[in-house]
């Protein structure tokens, strides 16, 4: 045996020693995930943004342009882990650099038509007017745009757009955006309150006290006083758990916090399902699969899209294809059982070189997660929840304000309404930029004109209440009840089968009852981790509570909307009904009950027409 120690072995040993030392010093070391004054409760922010995705960081940068204002971004992870990073296609905005024929009117019309006329057209006009401007701003901020020969960023055409108007970085448009914004935030020394799970927005009557959050690292409850709060916490695709392309963090935390202080959840039933998620885990196989000619085949070996879209077949719009697949599975012509059932996506007739050239990622994902090489075998797919059009009502799209004074909303957690009943590709990143910017400006203006009127004692009381709750919840014995994942799986079964791609009255009513029962079980569920340090089991408990409330709202909205429009498809009301439902659903949470109200859609130029592609 050699007595010599190789350099590598030596270094590994040294590393082990280093890790041991680091472990030993951990408790004397002071984390900087939270600015020091926040820990001691002696700071009042002018603008406190919840969420570090595209909307949150864009809002923070806009607000921080006023150097007199104190601005912070709170996030439950660390920045750059958000759903925004997953956006692939690009950001729409009319600039005319690639296609001089493009116009703002065209962007407005495409968006309104795509949204099945449930968009507020004045908001869409504002959105389209500002979207191009935001693309230029990002260029100046260092966004790595793919370029065209004249040196401008290049714009490509996305589904449902009449002109090429999506600027992008490769197939990682969102990732590049988030990192550009984050780097700018570092440069601007924006305060980050990282690894803090927001639990509650605390109010004293109609005065905003601030935000209650759990510092994940210490388990301490922190009350952050703020004159304004911008909720930018993203969507809620995780109500369908593995049947979503969304990250684990998309649990609707901000929507629930907003609802609990009186902001209505607008159009919660409007969920977009993408037709081709891997049956195994919901991960998205890109739209380009169908564009390159992949066929959809059911369990009986039959190419079935002819039944649902005789002309366009596999190339019909997302909602039509998703409904076709869901029908095949529901009627017993799918493959596999339960939530993993699907139909086949067949690439075998596509030349191998073309697959290598254009579908590399699709092939890679299929091989990795389904164990299938698409060149020789078919891959099992089924619809996956992709985007939440609904969200907290934005009362004024020129400021991002909600109906609660001092509270603003932006991004996927909000409902402007720009996307109406169905979002177009590459409109989400632009929405995030336009309304992130707007909300940042709006909150800054509000903070400048208002003194802090909240009650810090009430904020401290809210923290104490959550501290008690933490202690009670985490100390429950195993015999207390079902585990958090067990309740979650039951919730997902309810949501996927009874409030998923298709809905109908009886099933929705059953879903509401099942959710009420689950909410009861949730009250005494088993969490199983008592530690104060980074208790992700408790965090998941909090997220499940939020998902249950979001689920219940989706079901209420779906019951209220007795028509089919965009992402909302009722078997018992298969037609769009502009006479009765050209209006938004508003779901309020009042005294533990879900209350439904309606609000008319704003129409300026475009009267509803039948939506044909």
């Amino acid at each position, binding site marked *: 045996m050699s007595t010599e120690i190789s350099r590598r072995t030596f270094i590994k040993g040294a590393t082990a020693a280093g890790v041991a030392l680091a472990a030993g010093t951990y408790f004397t070391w002071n984390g*900087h*995930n939270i600015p020091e004054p926040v820990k001691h409760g002696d700071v009042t922010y002018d603008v406190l943004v919840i969420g570090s995705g595209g909307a949150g960081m864009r809002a923070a940068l806009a607000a921080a342009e006023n150097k007199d204002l104190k601005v912070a971004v709170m996030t439950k992870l660390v920045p*750059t882990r958000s759903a925004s990073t997953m956006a692939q296609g690009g950001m729409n905005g009319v600039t005319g650099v690639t296609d001089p024929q493009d116009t703002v009117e065209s962007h407005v019309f495409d968006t309104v038509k795509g949204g099945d006329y449930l968009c507020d057209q004045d908001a869409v006009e504002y959105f389209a007017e500002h979207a191009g401007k935001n693309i230029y701003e990002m260029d100046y*901020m260092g966004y790595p745009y793919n370029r065209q020969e004249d040196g401008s960023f290049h714009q490509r055409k996305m589904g449902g757009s009449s002109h090429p108007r999506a600027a992008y970085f490769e197939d990682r448009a969102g990732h590049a955006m988030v990192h550009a914004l984050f780097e700018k935030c570092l440069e601007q020394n924006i305060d980050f309150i990282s690894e803090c799970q927001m639990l509650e927005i605390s109010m004293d009557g109609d005065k905003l006290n601030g935000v209650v959050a759990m510092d994940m690292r210490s388990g301490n409850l922190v009350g952050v006083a703020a004159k304004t709060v911008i909720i930018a916490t993203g969507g809620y695709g995780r109500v369908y758990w593995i049947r979503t392309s969304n990250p684990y963090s998309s649990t609707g935390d901000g929507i629930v916090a907003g609802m609990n202080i009186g902001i209505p959840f607008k159009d919660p039933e409007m969920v977009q399902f993408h037709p081709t998620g891997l049956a195994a885990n919901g991960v998205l196989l890109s739209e380009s699969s169908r564009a390159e000619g992949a066929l959809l085949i059911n369990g009986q070996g039959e190419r079935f899209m002819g039944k649902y879209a005789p002309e366009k077949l596999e190339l019909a719009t997302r909602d039509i294809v998703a409904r076709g697949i869901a029908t095949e599975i529901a009627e017993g012509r799918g493959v596999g059982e339960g939530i993993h059932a699907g139909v086949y996506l067949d690439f075998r007739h596509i030349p191998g070189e073309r697959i290598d050239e254009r579908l590399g990622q699709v092939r890679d994902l299929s091989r990795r997660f389904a164990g299938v090489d698409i060149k020789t075998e078919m891959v099992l797919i089924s619809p996956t929840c992709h985007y939440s059009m609904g969200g907290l009502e934005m009362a004024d799209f020129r400021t991002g304000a909600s109906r609660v004074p001092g509270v603003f909303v932006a991004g996927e957690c909000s409902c402007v309404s720009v996307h109406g009943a169905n979002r177009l590709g590459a409109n989400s990143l632009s929405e995030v930029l336009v309304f992130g910017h707007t909300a940042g400006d709006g909150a800054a203006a509000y903070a400048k004109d208002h003194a802090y009127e909240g009650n810090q004692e009430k904020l401290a009381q809210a923290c104490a209440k959550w501290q008690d709750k933490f202690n009670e919840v985490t100390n429950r014995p195993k015999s207390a009840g079902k585990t958090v994942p067990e309740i979650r799986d039951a919730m997902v079964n309810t949501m996927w089968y009874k409030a998923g791609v298709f809905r109908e009255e009886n099933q929705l009513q059953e879903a509401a009852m099942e959710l009420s029962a689950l909410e009861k079980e949730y009250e005494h569920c088993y969490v199983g981790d008592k*530690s104060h*340090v980074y208790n992700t089991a408790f965090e998941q408990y909090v997220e499940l509570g939020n998902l249950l409330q979001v689920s219940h709202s989706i079901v209420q909205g779906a019951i209220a909307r007795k028509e089919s429009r965009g992402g909302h498809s009722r078997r018992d009301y298969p037609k769009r009904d502009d006479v009765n439902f050209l209006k938004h659903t508003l779901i309020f949470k009042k005294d533990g009950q879900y209350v439904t109200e309606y609000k008319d859609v704003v129409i300026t130029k475009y009267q509803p027409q039948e939506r044909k592609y």
Partner: protein
Amino acid sequence: MDATLRIQRFVEGKSWVQEYTVAVTVGMTILEALTTIKEKQDPTLSFTCSCRSSICGACAVRVNGNAELACEILVENLLKRYDTNTLFIEPLGNFRVIRDLIVDWDPKYAKLKKIKPVLQPKAEFSAETGCKQSPEDFNKYKKYAGCILCGSCVSECNKNTLNQDDFLDPFVFVKAEKLVADSRSRSPEEHLQAVQDAGLWRCFNCQECTAKCPKGLDPAGAIEKLKEATFRMGLSQDVGGKHAKAIYDDISESGMLDESKLNIKSEGFFMAGLRLPMALRLMNTGKMNPLESHPVNPEIATIRKVVQTAEKEAK
């Protein structure tokens, strides 16, 4: 098939290795295995994750001593690679551990701030009209825009293991090269100077970062490009830079290293003087003889051609 996962636990100051058994299914990633354990066996096991499609960077961990993105690496493939039924999972190396597999990113962001990590566009550009850049110039830095801040590159970085205080993380160099190579920038030297001051020339060139980057970004290559840029932009005052220059001069002039002068050229007379004991040892073993005149490699013509060709290629 069952796999045994031995997981490095660390909770409130206590550390231990805990063993779990999971049934391996088709397409099961390390992240899925961890999730299954947390949901079915042990709710106290802690880790972070978000997108589960290898773009958010939240889930990197160390498996059998090598950094991996938990959401994209299959248990089955790892078992094959290591020809085993047991995998050892730890938090990333060169990070402070907060709990179990969760590590502390704060010091990393502080390092990122050191390089002034944002583009300062040229005067002819504006926020209203954006910037201009040719597709060729875009190609020069686009690879480096793909960093997802997962931390895999630094996990096995030998220089960071030795001392983190006088060096940066490999991903910080990647971010820096992105800025330095971006033709929209009016001040690439500013980032470059910051990188040089923060330890550019201290890289061991061990290539662990390049081997571990799940996005194939080649951080070690970025470090080399930054070093080149210090010459191009006339910033080579650093010892590392002078050392490289001295080697270059020796090779082009004589085709052989002149050990007796190399150190003096790199560090200057005074600092080199402090290395006298090493010089004596070198003389003792015959590796260096300051009294002999420096020989010229008989193949000098060929060597010069090689140098010239390499220089042409680099341009």
